[in-house]
């Protein structure tokens, strides 16, 4: 057994984005300790600098393909693209909350956010079961804490539910991993694939696959493992909910894309079928339950479940192009969902509630924000010319190509259903006037938050009109 590591042989370039995030999370944490109360508001800007620096270094190694640390950590285009999406959405969250009270120490909030980002990045790059398990825990543990940070009854209840369900799903995932290890004696994805190739399919392999689907299905909030999502999106502080809606799922999808074709390559039709079933269940349950919601964040929570369903179509297709269209749709979805959460944040900052009726007359209070919200809603439905349309087009086209026409039809029908609740939001903003006696004054929005929402709106439009701009970067 080789028990040495040659440090000079390690390609440190491959790890620079992670190292930058780690460095900045420590700096921000120390800043919370040593800075005076008045200068702590700088920490948000420092975090933003860290995220952008990490993104730049990621661009530098964009086409790098490397496996480091005895197969623990691997970099490829899929991982890089998902990391980039994660960093961009997180940077937009941080930009949006620069002037917003985050309900806890700034340093604590931003360092925990960066720890979670770091875990998600490692998850996207893990090529080993041990690394995947630890990275996953590093992703979710700070999320539990951030969810509980408001310390109201609702926030802590949501955190407890998130924590308990998260722990149960982690242990089921772990049990599945132990079986995979037992069948092969390996923990590395590629080595597992090598050991399993050419052998008859063992029953324990199928059990392991199902258990890992349960564990990772929880993290991406697929039905029937979605129970935490609406509660967490509703109960956690809005900046946290915005982050959770977009970023961390990148890790789950990256892990599935890396693990399943390799380790479970011999039972590929089985897991593709499981993902197809989960896709249909998530789409139907998410959309139908969302129809009856009145709390906007809860509505967005169920919409997130439905969108996990659309994304799972890419996994059910189980081809390279399927994964690529999944990644494109993930970007499109997380931008629109993040934008919607930031608009809710803008309203809440001015003391408005988060129910649908609180959106009445929004178009007169803040015309630009209402326009942005309407565009996000249209994009989530999949109305051209916005990004959501192109995303769904690519996904369902891949489904049709792989003879999953029924899945594409279910997806399109669900998009039609989803129109029902997204359009309610738009109707409230433009057609319903606020209750009598309430003056409709222009709403003040903090500049960074407004800028963040406008950037997202521009991105949603550009990605809808020129999707090739992005597709050429991810080399579809």
């Amino acid at each position, binding site marked *: 057994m*080789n*028990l*040495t*590591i040659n440090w000079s042989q390690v390609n440190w370039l491959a790890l620079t984005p992670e190292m930058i995030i*780690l460095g900045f999370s420590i700096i921000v*944490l120390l800043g919370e300790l040593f800075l005076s109360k008045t200068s702590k508001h700088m920490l948000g800007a420092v975090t933003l600098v860290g995220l952008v620096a990490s993104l730049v270094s990621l661009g530098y190694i964009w086409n790098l393909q490397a496996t*480091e*640390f*005895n197969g*623990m*950590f691997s970099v490829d285009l899929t991982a890089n693209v998902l990391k980039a999406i994660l960093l961009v959405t997180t940077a937009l969250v941080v930009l949006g909350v620069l002037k917003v009270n985050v309900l*806890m*120490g700034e340093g*604590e909030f931003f*360092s*925990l956010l960066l*720890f979670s980002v*770091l*875990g998600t990045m*490692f998850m996207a790059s893990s090529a*080993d079961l*041990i*690394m995947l398990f*630890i*990275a996953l*825990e*590093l992703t979710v*543990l*700070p999320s*539990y*804490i951030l969810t*509980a*940070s408001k*310390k109201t009854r609702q926030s802590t209840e949501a*955190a407890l539910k998130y924590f308990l369900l998260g722990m149960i799903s982690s242990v089921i995932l772990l049990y599945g991993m132990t079986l995979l290890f*037992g*069948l092969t*004696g390996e923990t590395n994805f590629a080595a597992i694939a090598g050991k399993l190739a050419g052998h008859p399919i*063992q*029953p*324990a*392999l199928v*059990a392991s696959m199902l258990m890992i689907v349960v564990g990772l299905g929880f993290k991406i909030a697929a039905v029937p493992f979605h129970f935490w999502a609406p509660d967490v999106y509703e109960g956690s502080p809005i900046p946290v909910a915005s982050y959770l809606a977009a970023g961390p799922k990148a890790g789950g999808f990256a892990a599935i894309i890396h693990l399943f074709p390799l380790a479970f390559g011999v039972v590929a039709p089985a897991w593709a079928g499981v993902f197809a079933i989960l896709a249909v269940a998530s789409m139907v349950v998410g959309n139908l339950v969302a129809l009856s919601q009145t709390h906007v964040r809860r509505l967005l929570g169920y919409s997130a479940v439905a969108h996990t369903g659309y994304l799972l179509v890419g996994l059910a297709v189980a081809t390279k192009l399927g994964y690529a269209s999944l990644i494109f749709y993930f970007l499109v979805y997380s931008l629109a969902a993040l934008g919607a959460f930031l608009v809710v944040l803008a309203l809440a900052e001015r003391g408005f509630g988060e129910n649908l009726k609180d959106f009445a007359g929004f178009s007169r209070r803040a015309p630009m924000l209402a326009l942005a919200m309407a565009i996000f809603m249209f994009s989530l439905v999949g109305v051209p010319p916005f990004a959501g349309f192109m995303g769904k087009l690519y996904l369902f086209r891949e489904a049709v190509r792989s003879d999953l026409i029924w899945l594409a039809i279910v997806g399109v029908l669900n998009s039609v259903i989803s129109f029902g609740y997204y359009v309610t939001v738009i109707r409230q903003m433009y057609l319903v006037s606020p209750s009598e006696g309430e003056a409709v004054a222009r709403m003040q929005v903090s500049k960074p938050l407004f800028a963040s929402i406008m950037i997202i709106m521009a991105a949603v439009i550009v990605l809808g009109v020129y999707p090739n701009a992005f597709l050429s970067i991810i080399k579809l």
Partner: protein
Amino acid sequence: MIEQVIFFALAAVAIISAIAVVLSRNLFHAVMILGGFLLTIAGFYFLLNADFVGIMQVFVYVGGVIVVMLFGIMLTPHEANITNAAKLQQKLGTYIAVAALIGLLAMIFIRTTFITSPAEPVKDTVSLAGKLFMTNYVLPFEVISVLLLAALVGAIIVARKEEH
């Protein structure tokens, strides 16, 4: 032969204590029995020639986790006795479903051919684990240190009282 006897003795203790934890009506008792359960698991590890894991099981779990749990229980000063709200039908249904699951898993394990190796187990697991942590597993080792830092900071943030 002697190994089989030890295995069955430990297995009996482990299963009985696990059932006692799950059915216990007193939180304090449950945690103490869990401590005993964790010690028997450490015994299994020694039987499996995994000395270092066994020692760590005693240190981390029995010494750390159990103590933290006792602190947690004492800081939430509610009545230690807890009632089990589940209805009889629900209980029966769960027992049957879980028994079926265990049976299914046992079937799967018996039907699966695991490729065992007759090689001699590693003797000095402590130094091997130390070397592995610093070589092949250095990256997860570092990541877990970040995880522990995040947990440390996070537990303080969540558990401290709001200053008004």
